[in-house]
């Protein structure tokens, strides 16, 4: 494993240094400054804004929603976040292009709403089925324990 680690790390360092070298030698300074700002902003927005917000939502859910329901809520939220991340830029940029480009013409806000509705609907149905099954199981179990008691008495 040690040899592999050295090979991977060395190859990575060389390729990364090559990339930095090409950036510094071939890209104009103004562009590099903007790229630097984007790289830094990406870190700050992700690590200091989005991630704490996600962690906060998870923390709140753990304290407010019962375990059984939370499983389904988390399932739906994960899917919704994944789809929304992709849809948001298109919602903002919709209609920004000449129509002949056939680009960004759809009503992405409506389509995202539809997808969220589908995800929420399917999740809610699965949850309802689960609640129904749990209830039936409990009733059957109570019936069985009742029978057992009766046998003992007899």
């Amino acid at each position: 494993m040690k040899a592999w680690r050295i090979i991977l790390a060395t190859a990575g360092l060389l390729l990364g240094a090559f990339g930095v070298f090409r950036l510094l030698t071939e890209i104009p300074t103004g562009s590099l400054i903007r790229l630097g700002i984007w790289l830094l902003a990406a870190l700050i927005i992700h690590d200091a804004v989005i991630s704490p917000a996600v962690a906060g939502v998870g923390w709140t859910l753990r304290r407010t929603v019962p375990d059984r329901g939370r499983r389904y809520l988390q399932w739906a939220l994960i899917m919704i976040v994944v789809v929304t991340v992709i849809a948001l830029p298109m919602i903002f940029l919709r209609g920004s292009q000449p129509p002949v480009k056939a680009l960004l013409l759809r009503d992405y806000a409506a389509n995202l709403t539809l997808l969220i509705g589908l995800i929420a609907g399917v999740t809610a149905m699965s949850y309802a089925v689960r609640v129904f099954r749990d209830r039936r199981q409990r009733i059957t179990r109570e019936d069985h324990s009742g029978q057992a008691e009766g046998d003992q008495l007899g």
Partner: protein
Amino acid sequence: MLQHRPRWWPSFTSTLRSTAVTARIGRVLGVAIGVLFTTGLLSHYQYEPWQWLPVPAKPVWGYRLTQGIHVAIGIATIPLLVIKLWSVYPNLFRFPPIRSIRHALERLSIAILVSAALVQVATGFLNVLNWYGFGWFFPPVHRFLGYVLVGSVLLHIGVKLPDIVYGLRARMSEADVLTEIPWNENPESHSNAGRLPDPPTPGISRRALLVAASAGIGVVVITTVGQTVTPLAPVGLLAPRQWNRGPQRVPVNRTAEQAQVGPIATAADWVLQVVGPRPYALTLADLEPRAVHRARLPINCVEGWSVGADWRGLSLLEIVEQAGGTAESRVQVVSIEPVGYNRSFVEGPQLSAALLATHLNGERLDLDHGYPLRLIVPNRAGVLNTKWLNRIEILS
């Protein structure tokens, strides 16, 4: 140096995060980045091939496939990356933040990896959406940043290999809990320090988390990929392009208005200059009788959309041979367009397969598709199929 972390230091209590979860997401993300790097380099080769190894003309759908994969996987990588970063977020709060020079370097390399990955996928997607507000010329920066990203991924795998091996070998339900305290310092984190009871995950299970994420990414792929996998266009709820809404059922990337070719391209006295050992010119009337070559070829854009179309036009090789060139010539086709991608080179197998198209899907070429004459070549990046031609130069 502080021995104990301050009371306000964040602590993570979720049992969902685990090296086993991260390693599984990371494996998929690593494969995705590898595919993106390979298809990205193939795309770059379209633009700057070595002269001794020209881009082949077969398979006809080659670039359609590789660039379709590049953009489809690139889009899917955005949520994948977000989930991967979620799974390791507590590592940001290790205490003390810096233990040694080696630890500082490792954290710096992670910062470069994370920021390069985020910017790479974000600007890649924005480029697909034709938004260039980031303010740099996209192709070279995307390529060089790709080198930085793949380099830092390789370094990251090298550094984390023991964790990766542990994570992939461990069963997901019983593996460590990933918190801000590293597992090798926290025997209660269900690490491989010994057999401990499985960490309870009262909410969603680790496996279900991965299934939900995969399902979400699956929805993203199915609803976006219709812009290149044409049968899936009807479910393309989030597809940036809709090929059937372009003129003559083919989208346009650069309009005639953007290219400022209007009056010259539509002039009745348009001529095509053919420059070579025996130069000559073709008028609009000369085109029609020679436009007898037909081909079903996809137009496949670097931005990841593609659509097959019926083309009719003149054989570029015939035009070149008439001017004294051969199938071995290197040819430059030049557009009326004053700036931008207004010329491209054709040589090798692509020269023999190239059409100078006058008709698209049974109609005279639309002005936005390059009227009166455009290049269309199999297995060639969309923008290199130069539009609004008025000059063919035989360079050798």
